[in-house]
């Protein structure tokens, strides 16, 4: 991997919009993500999180606005090697073994030979799939598939991880393990964008972006968002920012 000047701002999105026909999926999202933080994108399903994540990852173009990743405009082929991307579906090849899947994706990122096989053993071991490398993916449970997908995103040690609802459907133990791993990655200077619609995950992020109807309602640390809204729970803070404080009294709606 090429050496780079340390860039303080890893993601710089300016006024990003995206339309699908008549539907305005994203409506002017502007945000900056500094190096080494976990940025949580929170919002109900259908709020535009996935659209924004796909634009960040370079799988989709913005209708207007700009995204700069690691100092380069996105999408750009130069960025591709520095991004680890995990989609909502496993997005791997069910008839291939985990090892074959990882060998394929590793090769796309320029890993090969000893380095590749060592990396595969290492990463699979870390997520508890070390003994399942030979198994075809279609024999995996949902949680195993999600861990396999995370392996795939981490394999080439990217600077920026873009993870679309990585913990959905995971049991609490695995979910904790995922978040512990995210934290360790941030601690060594990796930057993570993690989307979720589960509010109790918000607490584990350094910065939160609340998304609703394609707009960014707020973007700040959990503590700052609590202070701003005067609420103790982040869920309530979200509701206040979404302009529905009445819902709090009714016991909260998601």
């Amino acid at each position, binding site marked *: 991997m090429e050496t780079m000047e340390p860039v303080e701002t890893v993601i710089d999105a300016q006024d990003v919009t995206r339309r699908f026909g008549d539907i305005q999926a994203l409506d002017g999202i502007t945000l900056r993500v500094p190096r080494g933080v976990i940025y949580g994108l929170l919002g109900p399903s259908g709020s535009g999180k996935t659209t924004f994540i796909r634009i960040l990852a*370079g799988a989709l173009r913005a209708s207007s606005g700009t995204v700069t990743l690691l100092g380069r405009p996105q999408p750009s*082929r130069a960025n591709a090697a520095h991004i680890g991307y995990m989609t*909502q*579906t496993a997005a791997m*090849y069910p008839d*291939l073994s985990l090892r074959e899947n990882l060998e394929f994706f590793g090769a*796309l990122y320029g890993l090969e030979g000893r380095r590749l096989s060592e990396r595969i053993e290492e990463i699979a071991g870390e997520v508890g799939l070390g003994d399942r490398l030979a198994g075809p993916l279609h024999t995996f449970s949902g949680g195993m598939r999600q861990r396999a997908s995370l392996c*795939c995103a981490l394999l080439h040690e990217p600077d920026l991880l873009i993870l679309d609802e990585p913990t959905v459907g995971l049991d609490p133990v695995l979910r904790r393990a995922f978040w512990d791993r995210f934290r360790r990655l941030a601690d060594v200077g990796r930057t993570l964008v993690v989307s979720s619609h589960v509010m109790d995950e918000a607490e584990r992020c350094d910065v939160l972006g609340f998304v609703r109807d394609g707009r960014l309602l707020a973007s700040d640390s959990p503590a700052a968002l609590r202070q701003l809204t005067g609420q103790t729970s982040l869920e309530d803070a979200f509701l206040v920012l979404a302009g529905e404080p009445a819902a709090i009294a009714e016991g909260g709606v998601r």
Partner: protein
Amino acid sequence: MSRRRVLALAKRIVHQFRRDHRSLFLLIVVPIIVLSLLGWIYRGSARSVTVAVVDQGSSPLAAQIVQGLQQDGTVKVRQMDAAAATSAVDRGDVDAVLTLPADLKVTLGAPPQQIQLTLEGSDPGTTGTVLAALNRTLPQTIVKAVSPAGLPIQLAPVFLHGGPQFDQLDYFAPVFIGFFGFFFVFLLTSVSFLRERMEGSIERLIVSPLSRGEIVLGYVLGFALFATLQSVVMVLFAVYVLRIHYAGHIGLVFLFTILLTLGAVNLGIFLSTFARTELQVVQFIPIVIVPQGLLSGIIWPIAALPRPLQWLSDVMPLTYANQALRGVMIRGDGLASLWVNVTVLVGFAVLMVVLGTSTLRRETA
């Protein structure tokens, strides 16, 4: 363009295929089964057609006619009496009754004698076989009765290509090899590419350092490997097991099947963009495959088609592949006389690569 990434993609396709026994079966075994069936149909002994002979007088000429019919080998001959023959043809046990009169002999200058032939008549194929056998043997036998040397003037055929042993299978096998290659490779690529989209893995590919061109090239390489394997197996089977007529250079047969399948791979990638389910891919078959099967000269020569259909034939890649495959295998044509076919097939493959790559670009739009 990175060779390593393209090879990684091709290797992945090979791995997937190795696991996918059904597709391998479809690609390798099914063509062999179909070719064998064709061989059986065209070369296996047909359902025997039986002619009952009622010999009313045991004249020497009658005995010679019976012998001639038996030697012809296309019909079975059973001698019966008149009553048994009548009920047998009525029941359908025999297909025709040939009644040879008692005083059958050749008398030059006398008015022609009649031999009665009663045909069951409900199957034109059977009727044709009976009439053809008699039309071959009767004149021969009658002339031999007068002059032992046989017909005084005989046809001496000289074959430029093919030969007296050349049959329907020799004529059809070369184009079936092309057709199967095109059909199966198209079907497998489009379904495999569609799966990539359905499973969401295409998203990972697009986000990775892999470029669109590399994706298409990797697919072409991976599938070309299996397409080549398929054509090698089919050609070897046709040549060495079915012993079909074969005049040209075997390398040219591979060249044309591979050129054709390269087009099919990219056509599959291109069209799979317009399908959302596997069923929708199957729905392309009547549009893409069937017209080419009918109009590319496989069964009916293009020259025999109505003019507007000939125009359609002219724009079908399979037409050029079929022409070339027949040319190579039957007539022993070389590249010098087939450069138009090579150009058209290469052009088709390139056009499909461009279209396939451009539809991939749409993926991110």
